[in-house]
């Protein structure tokens, strides 16, 4: 008998897929996301997985999760807690239980709840049989058996059959949230083009999951999330690291330069190297260096050679690059250093997010060594900020730090694509042969940038290096007054960038009791918290810093209009320390979290309420 099912609608849903590292949860999440994108919802995702490639099967450290929030509203976070958790084994259930809303639905693969697996996940008793899950709705599905059954007439064997079960779970989710499965079917056909038997098996499993959800008595209602009112335009799904890579390729094209990317593999920055390595058709040169130092050294060499030298890494790599970065400061060459921050100190938690490198990139070098620092706030914003990084680096002849975060790097969202023709060209003028002697440390009066003379240009031969430079000639100089003058000049040059960046804008009331001042990837949680609270009638404002050094010129004025400034950061209070230095007397208050996870909207709302 087929049950007659009802259909309701919801505004916002959060799903979390969790399983063993080998269960294909990231892929399952990606597929759900792609379909959700095509169906017109807004969304944000959060892949959360261990640093180990395949931690022992069934254990707690081996759990890999993927969370997606999708909505008919504009959203910026992957959701605090899940409406639905799909747990492929007891370990996934244990690790993720606290991420599920009270009353939420937990779908478990009951085939995996044998003695052995329970023990590996450190469950003393079977949570499906006792009171552990009393606050939730639980749907026990024999995912393994059902998958085997669906494939009994297929030629696949053993492990290959069992590996299809994530598609069974995906099929169920597609039914529950009224999604079409054509997009995933097309993906499977492409992915396994050379193995027709895999295509057939995966599609069969997907459909079996969909049909199972349709007929099982336990799932009574299909939930529809209407399309979001996104701004009209063409969209694609993008992660922060993809947007970063595409952004820098675009910047190089707009500048008419070769992008040279030197990098050493490091989580969570490696996917930028992978992405750039594909783009040879755009003339991109990637160099997988022998270490972090060689990566930045080669990038500096490329910049010296008149092209666009960029290096990318994470916090531990920035430590290693600091001496070379200082060389770029002293020689005043354009350079972009991408730092995709991860939880530290030391090796820390490589796959977890943090904002712990701000003070390092600002101050972590010998001597007085100013560099420009900018930070994207959402995955797609990485594109825009990449263009900015290059624009500032070449215009001011300075290293620019592009301070991204693990969370932004991997999270996906819809990106409204820019109009290509309207992207501004990046102007670069290299000096040419002149009558007068060439002065490599003369300066543009407006920007204080020195000329970028390219080796090979007749008549401009000159020597640069890390030793103290004489004004104008750039010759080695140990003159005390000259040294002080040059240090001040370099500081002034970077400070002048403030004239060339947008003012800080305030969302919400322009003055009042409380301003939340964020930077980087905390944007989503702050934005969401403030829009929720504003709907409740709470008066609170939000400003977000994309530029951390120098600050926007109107920052002081903005701060003066509020009684209290809340500065949420995923560190012990690094921006707040800089702010207190720049703006003494302002009432800055911190909200700090060092758990490797982004802020939840809930945490943010609580803190704001507490301060009002």
């Amino acid at each position, binding site marked *: 008998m087929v049950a007659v099912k009802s259909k309701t609608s919801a505004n916002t849903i959060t799903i979390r897929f969790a399983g063993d590292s080998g269960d294909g949860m990231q892929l399952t999440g990606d597929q759900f996301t792609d379909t959700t994108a095509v169906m017109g919802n807004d969304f944000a995702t959060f892949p959360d997985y261990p640093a180990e490639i395949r931690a022992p099967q069934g254990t707690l450290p081996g759990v890999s999760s993927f969370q997606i929030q999708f909505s008919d509203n504009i959203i910026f976070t992957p959701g605090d807690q899940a409406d639905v958790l799909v747990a492929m084994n007891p370990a996934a259930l244990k690790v993720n239980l606290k991420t599920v809303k009270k009353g939420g639905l937990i779908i478990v693969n009951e085939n995996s709840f044998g003695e052995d697996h329970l023990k590996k996940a450190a469950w003393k008793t079977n949570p499906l049989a006792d009171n552990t899950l009393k606050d939730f709705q639980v749907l026990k599905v024999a995912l393994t058996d059902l998958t085997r059954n669906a494939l009994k007439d297929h030629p696949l064997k053993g492990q290959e059959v069992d590996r299809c079960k994530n598609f069974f779970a995906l099929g169920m989710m597609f039914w529950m949230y009224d999604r079409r499965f054509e997009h995933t079917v097309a993906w499977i056909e492409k992915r396994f083009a050379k193995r027709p038997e895999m295509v057939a098996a995966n599609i069969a499993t997907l459909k079996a999951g969909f049909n199972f959800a349709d007929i099982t008595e336990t799932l009574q209602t299909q939930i529809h999330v209407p399309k979001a009112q996104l701004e009209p335009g063409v969209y694609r799904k993008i992660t922060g690291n993809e947007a970063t890579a595409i952004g820098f390729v675009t910047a190089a094209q707009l500048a008419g330069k070769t992008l040279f990317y030197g990098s050493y593999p490091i989580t969570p920055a490696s996917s930028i190297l992978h992405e750039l390595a594909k783009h040879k058709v755009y003339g991109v*040169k990637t160099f997988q260096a022998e270490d972090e*130092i060689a990566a930045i050294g080669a990038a500096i060499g490329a910049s010296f050679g008149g092209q666009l030298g960029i290096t990318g890494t994470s916090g531990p790599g920035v430590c290693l690059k600091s001496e070379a970065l200082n060389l770029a400061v002293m020689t005043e060459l354009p350079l972009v250093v991408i730092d995709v921050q991860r939880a530290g100190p030391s090796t820390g938690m490589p796959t977890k997010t943090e904002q712990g490198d701000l003070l390092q990139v600002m101050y972590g070098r010998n001597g007085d060594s100013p560099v420009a620092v900018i930070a994207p706030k959402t995955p797609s914003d990485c594109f825009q900020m990449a263009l900015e990084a290059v624009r500032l680096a070449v215009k001011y002849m300075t290293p620019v730090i592009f301070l991204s975060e693990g969370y932004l790097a991997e999270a996906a969202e819809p990106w409204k694509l820019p109009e290509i023709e309207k992207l501004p060209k990046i102007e670069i003028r290299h000096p040419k042969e002149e009558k007068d002697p060439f002065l490599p440390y003369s300066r543009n009066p407006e920007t204080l940038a020195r000329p970028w003379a390219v080796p090979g240009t007749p008549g401009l031969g000159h020597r640069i290096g890390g030793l103290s430079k004489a004004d104008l000639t750039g010759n080695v100089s140990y003159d005390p007054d000259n040294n002080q003058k040059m240090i001040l000049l370099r500081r002034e040059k970077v400070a002048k960038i403030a004239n060339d960046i947008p003012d800080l804008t305030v969302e919400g009331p322009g003055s009042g009791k409380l301003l939340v001042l964020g930077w980087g990837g905390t944007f989503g949680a702050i934005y969401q918290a403030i829009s929720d609270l504003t709907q409740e009638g709470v008066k609170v404002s939000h400003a977000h810093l994309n530029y951390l050094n120098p600050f926007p010129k109107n920052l002081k004025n903005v701060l003066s209009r509020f009684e209290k400034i809340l500065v949420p950061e995923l560190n012990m209070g690094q921006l707040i320390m800089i702010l207190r230095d720049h703006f003494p007397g302002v009432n800055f208050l911190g909200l700090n979290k060092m758990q490797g996870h982004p802020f939840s909207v809930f945490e943010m709302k609580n803190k704001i309420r507490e301060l009002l």
Partner: protein
Amino acid sequence: MSEAVLKLPYTKEDFVSGQEVRWCPGCGDYSILATMQRTLSKFDLPIEKYVFVSGIGCSSRFPYYMNTYGFHTIHGRAPTIATGLRCVNPELSIWVITGDGDGLSIGGNHLIHCMRRNVDINILLVNNRIYGLTKGQYSPTSEKGKITKSSPYGTIEQPINALCVAIASEATFIARTLDTDPTHMSYILERAAKHKGVSFVEIYQNCLIFNDKAFVPVTGRETREDRMVYLKDGQPLVFGKKKDKAIRLKGLYPEEVNYTAGGDTKDLLIHNEKDENPHYAYFLTQMEHPEMPVPFGVFRAIEKPTYDEMLDEQIRQAQVKGKGDLKSLIYGPNTWKVGS
């Protein structure tokens, strides 16, 4: 600061920069600098195409004294900067000047990888077997037992052999020369300049302040003819005051034998710098004082595709059907439309 544009043909003086040279009087670096300036002035490459890149140490001041483009970088890292530079500009003649400390200690990693990649640059390793600029500590090439400021009881470290490192890293051009023989040095510099791919040259250099006469037992006036052997391609390894000694193989080891000019060379070792196999070149690097005469000259000169060439070739291949356009980059494979 540079003066008016210099035109070919050049003189040695055209390569002299205005900066006052600050090495100790009598330092071996002077002869290396002068030989370089003289050698380059004979070529017809425009002067603006030369770039000298160095690390830290006495010899690393070299770029300041050359009237070319120059980059005095940081300790040990010159090969990385030269690599990046070469990757974006195929027309330059790039010279890395490094020392035993800079190249083999702090920068050892980069040296190895730069050579194995066969980046088309020339690396001169100026070896004085001591730290000069930091005032006299032992270096990775200092002999075991050496007493220095940082080893008052003698070093307990096995010295590294620069040319062995070059061979292990599969450098395609490997040579050794010395500061006191400008003619030979000039020949080697010319060979290095003309080699396509990485050229690695070790130069024995005297630091008269902290390690004076370190090479005299081999290269000194009295002993050099018996203790040095100049390598000549296709010729036996002849040495001795009267050119009466040569080398032959005894099993896997070299052995000194008597030699008469024009005599039978059948049993003798004949130098072959083009041997693709690294065994022979490695064997030569093991000929060390005092057991054997020390070889000078080109140990190895073979041809292999260079890193920079292959990098450009991959891009050329990718662009056979045209360069990528921004729209397909930004749009990617999957887009969807919202609204009208």
